[in-house]
């Protein structure tokens, strides 16, 4: 019993599209940030699927680095969200559209 690699790629495309959609229509800054993580995960699945197809370890190394960078990004991003919440008292992205306090 085999599964075509194309199905994995289609699954990853579906997850990526849902991530873009959530990024566009969500209004809570934390949920917007979570949809970015969803997109990163979808791309990781593509990397692993291609690494499996071409029997290359490099694809999985890429995923490893994406995970490391995503962890760093999540830490800094959430710290920025906390700082934004302290100064504006809101998490709605539409209320955070001025650079001036």
């Amino acid at each position, binding site marked *: *019993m*085999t599964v075509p690699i194309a199905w994995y790629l289609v699954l990853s495309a579906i997850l990526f599209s*849902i991530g873009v959609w959530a990024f566009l229509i969500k209004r809570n800054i934390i949920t917007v940030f*979570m949809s970015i993580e969803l997109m990163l995960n979808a791309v990781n699945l593509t990397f692993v699927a291609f*690494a499996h197809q071409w029997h290359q370890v490099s694809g999985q190394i890429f995923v490893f680095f994406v995970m490391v960078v995503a962890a760093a990004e*999540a*830490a800094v991003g*959430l710290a920025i969200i906390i700082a934004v919440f302290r100064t504006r008292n809101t998490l709605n992205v539409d209320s955070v559209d001025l650079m001036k306090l």
Partner: protein
Amino acid sequence: MYLLLFFIFGGICVIGALNLLLQRHPINSALSLIVVMSSLAVLYLLLGAEFLAAAQVIVYSGAIMVLFTFVIMLLNAGKEERTHGSKTAYIVGVPGVVVLLCLLSFMFLSQKSRLGSARLGDYLVTTSDLSAVLFRSLLLPFEVTSVLILVAILGAVALARREN
């Protein structure tokens, strides 16, 4: 068996992602994202990436999502307010997403025979294979990422600190 596992966990992935989109409370979105990430770990295991499956559970559904739920609870984030954002996002963005999905799916499915297929256990990358590449030919990028994480820790502390 393999097909069944793929459909079960692929289906859970898509349902969890849709739930993230449809829920209005951020904590529900965070929990459904944990479901997506955990079932992606099973898919990695099906593709023979055992180290990445473990790292996915530990780093993503463990560390990153705990950070997310912690921040949601710390800021006491309530239900999402319904405000209308930019019109362009709805008019151009949502059809754009559908077009992107159709284009990608058409491309992948038309190349289906050339892309080959996956069988359970036909290509297994062990942790020692991965570390041989990571610690020999890619040692410098690996060390640079540790500097990146250090900078990220310092930045997170500096940004989240309460100013006096």
